[in-house]
């Protein structure tokens, strides 16, 4: 049950954050393609949560791929933040 809870909560929190960022499009903010990739990653993480109920190891592999997709958005942001400081 631990993998389900972990993947599920992470997918929801990350999905909410990305949805909030992407909804700024309504105010004229341009879309970051990596944010879209990461949003699909959070969706894959959600899928991994359900797979984990049946095949935990296969779910871990899906979750790892999803996490890498999500990192493609967060890693450059963190790097820029660190460089700015």
């Amino acid at each position: 049950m631990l993998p389900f809870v972990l993947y599920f909560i992470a997918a929801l929190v990350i999905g909410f954050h990305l949805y909030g960022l992407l909804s700024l499009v309504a105010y004229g903010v341009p879309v970051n393609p990596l944010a879209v990739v990461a949003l699909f990653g959070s969706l894959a993480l959600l899928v991994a949560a359900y797979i984990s109920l049946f095949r935990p190891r296969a779910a871990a592999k899906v979750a790892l791929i999803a996490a890498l997709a999500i990192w493609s958005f967060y890693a450059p942001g963190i790097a820029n933040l660190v460089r700015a400081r």
Partner: protein
Amino acid sequence: MILPFLAIALLVIVTAYSALVSFRERPKDAPSNLIFPARTRRPARIVAALASILIFGVIASSVIRGPQASRERTVRFLIPENYTGWVRVDFEITDAPPLPVEDGQTVLRIPPSGKLTTSSPEQFGIEKDRYFSYSGDTLKPIPKSGPGRLIWGRLNGEEQGASGKRTYEEFFVGSEQQYMDQAKARTAPNSP
């Protein structure tokens, strides 16, 4: 503000956990544990399904209602025909009447003086305001953009009044030249 940090923290945990489970071989005949759990039992799967249906239901209803309920502002300004000059609306004035709502749009009927006071609060959100000139019961749309634009200098602010803080909105009705002349007169050092 906490959401991005929480997202990154969870992402770090998920990455570490999924990498560990993916790449580390589970010893044969080892009992299931926290890191290498066995297949979830049926009651737990049912609980997970019910919990996720509940959570998705709440999220879907808030997403569907959200944009219409809180992010859009639909206001209809009715301005006297041939009116030229600044229009001002003061909100949250205690003794003033509330704004009427017609067809889901809040109606602000500006009197010939160009000043309207209301007890209703100011609306915020994605602006979908519409402007009309009125003469009796006849309404004509006033363009707020494009070549024949007649609405300029829209602004809102907050003022400290006798009854506390209150908000206001202002905009100019007229041609671009009239607006420029008015703006210059407003910012001139000796202007009243």
